[in-house]
């Protein structure tokens, strides 16, 4: 059972960034505030861990009306802030949940403290229905999400103790990645993935159900799904892609993966399959047009690892205010962010050795 929720401030408890909001400080996020109050009503205590000056804690307490049992505001790693709160409040790490909008903060805390339940704000909004927060109230769907987090925690605990290579660990977990051609029944989940993926969404685009259905029926396109499971549990469909399969080359119009599947070999398996299938189909090259943002770094790493390089098609487009804002919010450590929608086409030739499909991935020879 969770006894304490440790909240991030910027874009989590507050609907905005404390230090970047000018004279009008941001209000609380209404959905998160509802959840926090609900959990407080069940006797769960609250704490703060934030990259902000100490006065931010007082402000958040005033505007939310929430009493925080502990507050860590500073610039060190979040895992250390969480660790100090756990020590200060005398909690067991597995009685603590940590909520942060930043994927990397979540990854850092998950890695350093695998017992802590680490959640995005979206998941925290559903968490009131999870058994970890309330043994009495469980809907089937929410219960399943709660289970996935419990499975992830067991996987992380074993990963920490494992001490071998990632490939060895994925084999040890009996990881199974299944790549298949999409059918009509896959449209709702593919659409949901396109809406919910940010870090792993090559084009930074959403795709409608109608467009997906048309692409699945199109002779010039391949729409693929990727499912993931291991001995800890079944994650279901975690990724997909839309391929324009031209005679001379394949262009990946959209490549997307749930950030829940990060670190589990899924994107590498999908890129390896794409290269091999394109080669078998007689294509000379594969290209992946990408929106270049600070959020897209994990995908760029996967592309570099699979031998993709940016080519002549790389351009800096006209400014897109919404995108620049998103990038700026992401680059919370003050890194320079260029205004504008910057795109790059990452490509590779298919001559010579191609990335290998791992033994634990199954995929069609050619759809």
């Amino acid at each position, binding site marked *: 059972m969770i006894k304490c929720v440790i909240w991030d401030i910027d874009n989590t408890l507050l609907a905005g960034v404390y230090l970047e909001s000018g004279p009008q400080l941001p209000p609380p996020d209404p959905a998160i505030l509802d959840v926090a109050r609900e959990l407080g009503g069940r006797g769960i205590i609250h704490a703060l861990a934030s990259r902000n000056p100490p006065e931010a804690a007082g402000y958040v307490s005033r505007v939310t009306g929430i009493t925080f049992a502990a507050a860590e505001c500073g610039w060190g790693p979040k895992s250390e802030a969480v660790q100090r709160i756990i020590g200060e409040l005398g909690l067991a790490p597995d009685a603590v949940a940590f909520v942060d909008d930043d994927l990397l903060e979540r990854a850092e805390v998950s890695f350093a403290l695998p017992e802590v339940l680490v959640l995005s704000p979206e998941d925290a909004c559903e968490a009131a229905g999870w058994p970890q927060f309330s043994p009495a109230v469980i809907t089937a769907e929410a219960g399943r999400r709660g289970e996935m987090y419990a499975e992830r925690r067991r996987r992380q605990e074993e990963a920490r103790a494992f*001490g071998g*290579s*990632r490939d060895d660990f994925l084999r040890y977990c009996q990881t199974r990645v299944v790549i298949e051609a999409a059918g009509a029944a896959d449209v709702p989940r593919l659409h949901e993935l396109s809406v919910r993926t940010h870090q792993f969404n090559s084009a930074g685009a959403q795709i409608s159900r109608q467009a997906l259905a048309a692409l699945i029926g199109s002779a010039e396109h391949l729409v693929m799904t990727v499912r993931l499971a291991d001995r800890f549990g079944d994650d279901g469909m975690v990724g997909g892609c839309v391929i324009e399969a031209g005679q001379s080359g394949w262009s990946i119009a959209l490549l997307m993966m749930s950030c829940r599947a990060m*670190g589990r070999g899924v994107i590498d398996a999908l890129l390896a399959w794409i290269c091999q299938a394109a080669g078998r189909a007689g294509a000379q090259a594969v290209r992946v047009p990408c929106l270049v943002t600070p959020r897209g*770094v994990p995908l*760029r790493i996967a592309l570099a690892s699979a031998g993709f390089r940016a080519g002549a098609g790389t351009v800096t487009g006209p400014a897109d205010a919404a995108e620049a804002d998103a990038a700026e919010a992401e680059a919370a450590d003050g890194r320079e962010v260029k205004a504008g929608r910057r795109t790059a086409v990452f490509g590779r030739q298919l001559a010579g050795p191609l990335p290998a499909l791992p033994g634990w991935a199954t995929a069609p020879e050619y759809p």
Partner: protein
Amino acid sequence: VTSDARPSVADELRQILADVTGNPEVLGISPETALFGAGVGLGSLSGTLLLRRVRLRFGVDVAGEDLNLDSLATLQTLAAFIDQRAPGQRCQADMSPG
């Protein structure tokens, strides 16, 4: 060559790589070891954590300066990329506490 026992960039990178991959065997890799594939087995998650640690430690934004991430080819190429860009930041970082 420095007069004190300050660890080299490559040594610090070995420690960071061992941390982000969770694999202590990485502490013993040679400078020519590939970071992707069979070498270190860097993935998108561990790679992103690596680049963040590099930015915090050396003040070098590898992802911002190297679109293709060619600097991630080997331990040596990454250490050289950092060395070329951050001698000043490195001294500063060493002076500051914690």
